C-alpha cells in the first residue's frame, strides 16, 4: 500500500520530514512509530498505518512533504496492482469535487466526508488542504503520473516484472520500482492476470483483413478492468467513501469484501476526522476547483515574479511554522475586530510575594501562574472573553472550562502550548505545567493536540522587552492578554512619588463579541487580583 503523509490536524498541510526510524525491508506493526516530521508547531511522530514490510521509503530527511504525498510503500501482503487506479482515483476526486474559495468557510462540515477520502491508509487522517497542496505542486504533472507508461525500474526489475507478468506501469508508483514491489504485485495480482488472459474472448467474426486483426487483438471483455471480489453496491459504497477497495480485507466467504468491511474502514477514518473537528476552526479543509487553483497559481506566480529576490535581497524559505503563523495571524486580523485595551498594574506586592515563596517551590515559579489565576477569576465574571464566535449560527459559545495557550518563543518559531484546566490546578501545578510545556516546545516535542486552540491566550512578550503592544487573537478565541516587562516605575501613592514594580497589560479582544466596557471591567478585575495577590494565593 501507498502510505500517504497523514494529516495531523489543525490545518497542517505540509511539514518538513525529519527522519525515518525504520529502514527499507523492516517489518513494522500498525501504529508503530516509523518516522518523524515537523509540522505546524510541533514535531509529530508518524505511525505505521498497518502491519507490513517497508518496501520503499519515498521521503528523505529534509524533504518538504505535503499531506497526501506518498512517503512510504508498505507491503501489507495485499493487492497492489490495483492501487494505482485507486490512488489515482482519489487524486482525481480532489480535482473533481471542487469547493470554491468563497464557500469553504461555510462548508467545513460537508467537506468532512470528502476529506477523509484522501486519507486512505493513513491512520490519523482528516483534513486536506488541497489549496496549499496545489500551490506548490505541479498538478498536471501529478495527474499524468499514472497515465504515462514511463516507469523507473532497473532492467533486472523489468525482467522480473516480465517473468511475473506484472505490468509496471500499472503499479502506480512514482519513484523507482523495486524487486520487492514486483514480487508483491505478482503475489497478489494472480486473479487479475488470469482474468486478463481470459479477457481475450470477445471479438467479431471477420473475414481476415488487416483492420480486423488489430481489432481482434484489442478486443477484451470487462474482466480486463481487474476482478474485485465485491458486489456492485459494495464497490459503489467504497467509491463514495473514497476507499480503495483493493486495500480492504474481505471478511466474507472466500475473502469477499462486504458492505460492513467498507463501513468499518470508513468508520475508522471518520473517527479520526471527528476527533480533529472537535478542535474548532481549522484551516480550510476544502478542495479547490482545479481551474481556480491553476488560475490562482498563475496569479501567484505573476505576483511573486515581481518580487523575486535579486541583488542584495536574499530569499529565505518559510518554515512550516512560519507559514502557519503567517496564515493564522492574517486570518485572525481579517476576521476578528481587534481592539487593544492597555492598562498598568502595580504588582509590587506580587513581586514581594513571589520572592518570598519561590524558594519553597520546586518548580520554577514565574509570574505567569499568578496572572493565569487572575485571568480565570476575571473570565468567570466576564465569560464573553472566554468564548468563541460561531458566525454560522450567530451564537457566542461561552466555554465553561479554562484552557490557555501560552506563547513561547523557540528556535523553530512561535509555539503556543496549551495548559488545560487552569481553574482546577494550583499554582505549583501550573508552574510545573508551564515549565514542562515550554521546554518541550523548545525541543519540538509537543504533540499536536497540545497546541490546539484553548479558550484564551497569554503572551508574555515583556520577558524579552516592550512595555505595551497589540497582541493578535489566536483564532477562534475572543481575547488575548499581553504582558509587558515588569519594571520599576515612579508612581504617585498618597500624593507622593514612590518607586513601584509595575507591568503594562495589553488586552486584545474581538469587538464582535466583547464591548469596550466589558473589556475594561475584565481588566480591572485582573489588575485588582494582581495588586492583591493574597486573593490568588488562597488556592495555592
Amino acid at each position, binding site marked *: 500500500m501507498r502510505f500517504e503523509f497523514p494529516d495531523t490536524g489543525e490545518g497542517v498541510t505540509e511539514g518538513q520530514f525529519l527522519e525515518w526510524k525504520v529502514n527499507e525491508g523492516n517489518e513494522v506493526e500498525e501504529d508503530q512509530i516509523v518516522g518523524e516530521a515537523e509540522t505546524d508547531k510541533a514535531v509529530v511522530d508518524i505511525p505505521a498505518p498497518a502491519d507490513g514490510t517497508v518496501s520503499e521509503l519515498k521521503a528523505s530527511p529534509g524533504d518538504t512533504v505535503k499531506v497526501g504525498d506518498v512517503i512510504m510503500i508498505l507491503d501489507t501482503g495485499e493487492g497492489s496492482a490495483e492501487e494505482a487506479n485507486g490512488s489515482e*482515483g482519489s487524486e482525481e476526486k480532489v480535482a473533481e469535487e471542487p469547493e470554491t474559495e468563497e464557500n469553504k468557510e461555510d462548508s467545513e462540515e460537508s467537506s468532512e466526508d470528502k476529506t477523509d477520502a484522501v486519507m486512505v491508509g493513513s491512520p490519523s487522517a482528516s483534513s486536506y488542504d488541497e489549496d496549499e497542496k496545489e500551490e506548490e505542486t505541479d498538478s498536471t504533472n501529478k495527474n499524468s503520473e499514472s497515465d504515462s507508461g514511463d516507469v523507473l525500474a532497473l532492467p533486472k526489475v523489468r525482467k522480473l516484472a516480465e517473468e511475473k507478468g506484472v505490468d509496471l506501469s500499472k503499479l502506480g508508483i512514482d519513484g523507482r520500482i523495486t524487486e520487492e514491489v514486483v514480487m508483491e504485485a505478482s503475489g497478489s495480482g494472480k486473479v487479475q492476470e488470469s482474468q486478463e488472459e*481470459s479477457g481475450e474472448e*470477445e471479438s467479431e467474426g*471477420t*473475414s*481476415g483483413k488487416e483492420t480486423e486483426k*488489430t481489432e481482434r487483438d*484489442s*478486443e477484451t471483455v470487462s*474482466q480486463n478492468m481487474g476482478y474485485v471480489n465485491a458486489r456492485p453496491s459494495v464497490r459503489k459504497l467504497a467509491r463514495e467513501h473514497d476507499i480503495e477497495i483493493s486495500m480492504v480485507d474481505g471478511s466474507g466467504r472466500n475473502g469477499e469484501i462486504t458492505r460492513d468491511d467498507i463501513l468499518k474502514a470508513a468508520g475508522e477514518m471518520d473517527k479520526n476526522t471527528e476527533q480533529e473537528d472537535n478542535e474548532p476552526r481549522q484551516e480550510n479543509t476544502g478542495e479547490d476547483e482545479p481551474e481556480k487553483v491553476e488560475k490562482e497559481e498563475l496569479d501567484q506566480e505573476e505576483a511573486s515574479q515581481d518580487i523575486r529576490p535579486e541583488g542584495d535581497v536574499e530569499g529565505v524559505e518559510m518554515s512550516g511554522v512560519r507559514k502557519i503563523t503567517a496564515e493564522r495571524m492574517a486570518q485572525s486580523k481579517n476576521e476578528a475586530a481587534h481592539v487593544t485595551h492597555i492598562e498598568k498594574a502595580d504588582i509590587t506586592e506580587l513581586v514581594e510575594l513571589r520572592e518570598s515563596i519561590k524558594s519553597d517551590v520546586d518548580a520554577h515559579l514565574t509570574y505567569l501562574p499568578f496572572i493565569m489565576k487572575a485571568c480565570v477569576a476575571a473570565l468567570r465574571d466576564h465569560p464573553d472573553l472566554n468564548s468563541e464566535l460561531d458566525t454560522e449560527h450567530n451564537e457566542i459559545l461561552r466555554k465553561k472550562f479554562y484552557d490557555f495557550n501560552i506563547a513561547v518563543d523557540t528556535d523553530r518559531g512561535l509555539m503556543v502550548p496549551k495548559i488545560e484546566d487552569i481553574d482546577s490546578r494550583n499554582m505549583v501545578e501550573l508552574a510545573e505545567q508551564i515549565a514542562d510545556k515550554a521546554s518541550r516546545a523548545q525541543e519540538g516535542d509537543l504533540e499536536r493536540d497540545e497546541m490546539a486552540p484553548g479558550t484564551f491566550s497569554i503572551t508574555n512578550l515583556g520577558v524579552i522587552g516592550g512595555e505595551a503592544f497589540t497582541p493578535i487573537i489566536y483564532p477562534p478565541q475572543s481575547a488575548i492578554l499581553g504582558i509587558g516587562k515588569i519594571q520599576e516605575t515612579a508612581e504617585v501613592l498618597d500624593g507622593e512619588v514612590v518607586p513601584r514594580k509595575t507591568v503594562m497589560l495589553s488586552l486584545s479582544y474581538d469587538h464582535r463579541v466583547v464591548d469596550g466596557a466589558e473589556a475594561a471591567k475584565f481588566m480591572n478585575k485582573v489588575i485588582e487580583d494582581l495588586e492583591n495577590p493574597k486573593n490568588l494565593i488562597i488556592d495555592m
Partner: protein
Amino acid sequence: MVVGDIETGTELLVIGGGPAGYAAAIRAAQKGLEVTLVEKEDVGGTCLNRGCIPAKALIHAAGFQKDMEHWDEIGIHNKGLDVEFSEVQEWKNDIVENLNTGVKNKLEAVGVELMEGEARFLDDSTVRVEEEHRTDKLNFEKCVVATGSKPVEIPGLEFDKEGVISSREMLNLEEVPEELVVVGGGYIGMEAVTKFCKFGSKVKIVEAEERVLPNFDEEVVENIQETSECYNDEIYTNTKAFEVREGETPVLLANQDGEEIEIEGDYILVAVGRETRSGLKSVDLENTSVEIGENGFLETDSRMKASENIFVVGDAAGQPMLAHKAYMEGKVAGEVAAGENTGMDAQFIPKVMYTDPEVAVVGLTESDAREEYEDVKVGRFSMRHSGRALTTNGGDGFVKVIASEENQILGVTIISDRASDMIAEATLALEMQAYLEDVIGTVHAHPTFPEAFQEACEDALNKSVHT
C-alpha cells in the same frame, strides 16, 4: 475560418447522440450540468437507428413467418396468410421513430440542448459546430466524445459498389432477397442470416476463419448449427472475399483454400466488424491533447476520462462495442463530469446473439475456466426438460453454469429461446459474487425459462431434479 462564427459556451459538450452519448448527456443534465449534445444524424445512434433495435424488430417479424408451419401443427390454420415485407419495414420504422422521439423528448425534458450538425475540435476547449445553415463556435468546460463506430469496409468490396451493402442498408431492404451472400460469420452476419433465412432467403456465408462465430465456443456453434438449418445452409469457411463483380446480380469473388470461387447473390452483405477511426477523425480529434491509440480506440481511465476534461465513451472507448456497455459508460461519464465520485467498474458484460435459438454468454466459458482453474464445476440443463420451453415450441439449447471449486459462479452460457433475457439473472449473480447455493436457494417461478438456470446450478452439485 468561417466569417460570422457565433461563439457560445456550455459546461458539458457531448459529441454523438448514440446510446453512450445520450446517456451521458441525460445523466449530466439530471445532475445539474448545462449540456449541449451535437448529433449529425439521428439521436439513438447505430443501435437505435441502424443496429440492435431495427434488427431485432425484423428478427421478430421473421420469426412469425417461420412459425407459420408450426401454427398449422397446433391447429391454427393460416392458409391464405400473406406477408407484405414493405409493411413489416414500415412497422419496424415506426418502432425506431417511436424510440427516437422518446430519446428526443427525454433530452428536452432534462434540458439538454440538441444541435443537429457536425462538431470539429479546434482545441481542448472549443469546437466548431457546422449546422445546416450556420456555424457556431462552442466553448466547453468538459466534453464527452461518443462518436461510435462504422462497418469496416473491405478493399474490393466497397460499399459504394452496386449490390454491396452493410448492416445498415440490410435493415432497409424493400423486399426479401432471394439469395443473400453474407461476408463475415460473426454475430452481425449470423443475425442477418437468422432474419433472412426465416423470411425465406437462401443465405450464403463467407467466413475467413475455420468456422463461423470464431469467438464463441465450438459447442455453442455446433449446437445452433444442429438446431437450425439456417446456419449450415451454405457456409464457406477459410474463404477470403476479395472482389465483387458488379452486374445484374453482383458476384463475390473469393479465395477458398487457394482456389478462386464465385458466389452469387442479390446482395453482398459485408459484416466483418466495426471501426472507430473514421468517426474520431471526423471530429478533428488531432486538435486536442487526446490521441487515438493504435487499435483505433481512445484510452480512458475508469472514470472514462481520456484527458483532464475530455471523456470518451461507447465504441470509441474500446471493446466490446456493445450498446449496454456504452450506456453504462455514458452514465458514468455524465456523473463524473457533474462532479460525482463514480467509475466504470462493471466486471461482467454479457454478450448476446439473436440467432435461433438465441445465444448469451457472461463471464468465463468452460474452456477458459478450465485453463484458469484446476478444478471447476460445470452444471448443465437441457432446455428439452424445460416445461416452459416445450409449451412455446422451444426445447432447443441448454444452460451451462461454470463454478469454482468453492461453488462461486464463474460464467454462464445459455443457448435457448429468450437466452437474451435469461442472461440478466446470470450477470447479476456474477456481479453479486453469487455461489451456486445462492441461485439454488432462490425460488424461481414455474413454469418459466429462468428455472433452467437454477436447475443448471443444481446440476453442478449433482442434484438437479429434472435432469
